[in-house]
């Protein structure tokens, strides 16, 4: 089997796995137990499907293998214990599902809402979704999220225990709670995408971006009437379309306004535009739609050559009202510099100048550095760029900022 077919087979194994974990966990709320029940079957599928081809009924195949193991385990246990009752429950679930393998209900959305529940630790929502829906290993997730692998493993165990012990509901939220709860799911998926964004030329990071895109498409397919799901997917696609243009052939960082348009993926941009249009027609706007609209405006400016910065500032105004986020204020300032000049932009940041969150926030110092440079305040620019350099983790961006700082001396 060739590489592409291999990937497809692996993808289908993961999809099937995710559907079954969601199904088994939905009733018992025991995610770890569901994963345990399916672990061997899943490993088996990952090995044999790419080699032998995907079975006609993938879910049925996994269920059969998993059930066989569960039955064996139960036969081997001598005493009646909580463990055995648990195995019994799992076994019954699988028996029921196996009797209708073509009609296994898709509980993945409920599982995602459980992972992103308000009572679940924010930083663990994305890792949970990646592991339970996609079958990603703790090691791969740790690698993308830059956490030591053993630590990530421990946190995932604790998070799953929390779902079980805190009786976190597996349900699509009611209409009035849906926007906020969905936002948490989308935020988790976008966080996963962002992990795959910063590393260039690294295949495991690109894979993370692919997984996030896949999850985004899944949510859109499962909630076709939700505009924010489309907005978030569009946002990811706008970013993904520019992946090839973010670094030049030498590996140097290339900011958006200098990127080579020929390297942008037109198909992804067209898809993003279409999703955004659909989203806008569906109802009240949300932060992902606005962020996507801002990206759309940036692309339009480069493609048409027409200045549309006032429209971008207006979009940031709406976004700021919605989120009240210092990061949004910062990005708005960069756009404001184009319409009202760098001094006005710097002034707009005064309200959060003492915000502790900005003190070690690299983009804050980078933005201040650029704005101060444009405003002719070399001393402030030098100081800000120095801090930005010190807070950067990427060599390419460090070199770019060092170069910017060096240029302060000329002219």
């Amino acid at each position, binding site marked *: 089997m060739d590489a592409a077919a291999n990937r497809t087979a692996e993808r289908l194994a993961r999809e099937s796995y995710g559907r079954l974990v969601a199904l088994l966990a939905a009733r018992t709320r025991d995610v770890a137990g569901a994963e345990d029940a399916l672990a061997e079957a899943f490993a088996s599928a990952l090995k044999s499907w790419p080699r032998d081809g995907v079975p006609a009924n993938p879910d049925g195949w996994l269920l059969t293998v998993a059930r066989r193991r569960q039955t064996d385990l139960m036969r081997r246990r001598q005493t009646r214990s909580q463990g055995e009752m648990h195995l019994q429950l799992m076994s019954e679930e699988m028996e029921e599902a196996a009797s209708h393998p073509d009609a296994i209900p898709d509980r993945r959305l409920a599982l995602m809402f459980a992972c992103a529940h308000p009572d679940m630790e924010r930083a663990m929502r994305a890792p949970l979704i990646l592991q339970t829906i996609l079958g990603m290993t703790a090691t791969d997730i*740790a*690698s993308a999220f*830059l*956490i*030591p*692998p*053993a*630590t990530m493993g421990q946190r995932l165990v604790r998070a799953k225990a929390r779902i079980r012990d805190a009786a976190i509901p597996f349900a699509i939220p009611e209409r009035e709670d849906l926007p906020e709860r969905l936002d948490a799911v989308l935020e988790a998926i976008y966080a996963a995408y962002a992990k795959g964004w910063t*590393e*260039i*030329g*690294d295949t495991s*990071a690109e894979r993370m971006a692919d997984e996030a895109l896949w999850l985004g498409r899944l949510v859109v397919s499962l909630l076709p009437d939700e505009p924010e799901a489309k907005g978030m997917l569009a946002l990811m696609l706008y970013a993904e379309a520019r992946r090839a243009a973010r670094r030049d052939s030498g*590996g140097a960082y290339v900011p958006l306004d200098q990127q080579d348009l020929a390297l942008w993926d037109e198909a992804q941009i067209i898809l993003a535009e279409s999703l955004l249009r659909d989203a806008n027609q569906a109802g009240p706007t949300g932060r992902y739609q606005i962020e996507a609209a801002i990206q759309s405006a940036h692309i339009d400016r480069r493609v048409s050559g027409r200045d549309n910065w006032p429209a971008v500032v207006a979009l940031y105004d709406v976004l700021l009202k919605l989120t009240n986020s210092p990061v949004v204020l910062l990005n708005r300032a960069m756009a404001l510099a184009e319409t009202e000049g760098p001094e006005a932009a710097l002034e707009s940041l005064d309200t959060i100048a003492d915000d502790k969150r900005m003190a070690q926030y690299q983009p804050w110092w980078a933005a201040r550095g650029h704005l101060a440079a444009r405003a002719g305040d070399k001393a402030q620019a030098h100081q800000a760029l120095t801090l930005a350099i010190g807070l950067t*983790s*990427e*060599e*390419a961006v460090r070199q770019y900022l060092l170069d910017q700082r060096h240029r302060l001396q000329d002219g």
Partner: protein
Amino acid sequence: MKFMLLIHGDEAQSNAATSPDTKVMSAGYSAYTEALIKAGALLEGSRLRPTTDAACVRIRNGKTEVLDGPYADTKEQFGGYYIIETADMDSALDWARRCPASRLGTVEVRAVVQG
């Protein structure tokens, strides 16, 4: 001149140490630290948590790698240090010899680069 005394010891052994041993060891360290302070030599010192709590970060080809555990897989692990001010390397070595850690493990002496 400033020197760093690096204390290397077998964590597994010290974890397995029984209570009286630990008490004796603590007393030995307290006395040693007192001596350093009295001599006006001690600048700073800390004990590190075990290497089971350690992690390593490397960046290779632009990719950040995070690994569990310490950098070196050695029989004795780096578990504590003193920064001392003394006349020269010989004086620093005298202090290294007095350190209880040298009897169970190894004390490494490194000069601190000034400025």
